[in-house]
């Protein structure tokens, strides 16, 4: 049986998202698809699958990404969903442990690529936000003021997410000095 669950998680919550998807798999619901805000699950034996997600360096349709996805699938995993640069894999637990990023260097690199994607987005939003506020106040325009406030709110949200990602990255960089 298939079940759809609506849930919104931000890009910087990918660890929580992965943990939640694995909790679902433990309960006998494994991910089979994802569309913006909607996760689709099918029934499985509790704990039958391990689910992993990651942001690729390039869009999933490029030759490089396709090569990578094929490589991961050759190790016994299956890609079950993708959204923008993010991909979701599942692998049967009986086929062995399933990790995508094993060491600190790889995890730091992954975090860095997410940060690199979000920073310009935040700067762009802040700029547009102030521009809208400026226009809205100069030539009194409610629409511009509302847009400006929304842009600024998104920037604040992104800034919060980026702070979390940075903290995570710093902690990993400390650990990376001790371990591989």
């Amino acid at each position, binding site marked *: 049986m298939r079940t759809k669950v609506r849930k919104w998680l931000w890009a910087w919550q990918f660890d929580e998202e992965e943990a939640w998807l694995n909790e679902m798999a433990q309960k006998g619901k494994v991910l089979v698809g994802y569309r913006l805000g909607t996760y689709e699950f099918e029934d499985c034996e509790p704990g039958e699958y391990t689910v992993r997600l990651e942001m690729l360096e390039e869009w999933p349709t490029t030759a490089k990404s396709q090569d990578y996805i094929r490589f991961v699938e*050759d190790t016994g995993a299956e890609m079950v969903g993708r959204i923008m640069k993010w991909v979701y894999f599942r692998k049967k637990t009986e086929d062995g442990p399933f990790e995508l990023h094993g060491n600190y260097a790889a995890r730091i690199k992954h975090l860095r690529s997410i940060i690199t994607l979000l920073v310009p987005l935040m700067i762009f939003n802040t700029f547009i936000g102030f521009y809208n506020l400026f226009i809205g106040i100069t030539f009194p325009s409610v629409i511009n003021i509302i847009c400006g406030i929304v842009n600024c709110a998104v920037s604040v949200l992104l800034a919060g997410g980026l702070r979390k990602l940075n903290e995570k990255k710093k902690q990993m960089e400390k650990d990376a000095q001790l371990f591989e």
Partner: protein
Amino acid sequence: MGANFPLTEAVYYILLSLKKPMHGYGIMQNVEKLSGGRLHLAAGTLYGAISSMLEKGWIATASETGDSRKKEYRMTDAGLQVLKDEYARLQELVNNGKAVLEDAQ
């Protein structure tokens, strides 16, 4: 000592595995077996290591096996030299550790 050292554990074990041609999943299983189940290579890490080692010429693509489309890899002479150098380095670490720790007993 060259600029290539020390190797990561993953790279060392991948080179050890590729004395004969093997595909990605084979390498993963072999490394786990060699390390007595201690080291499980993450798929992304293995992919990254293989890409960099191909670039450096330490390994090469052997062929695509007939029954599946899985790519196989093998160690090159350059790779063998890197492995030998790393082996010598590790031996030095172990010998020094042995000298100190066994003296202490």
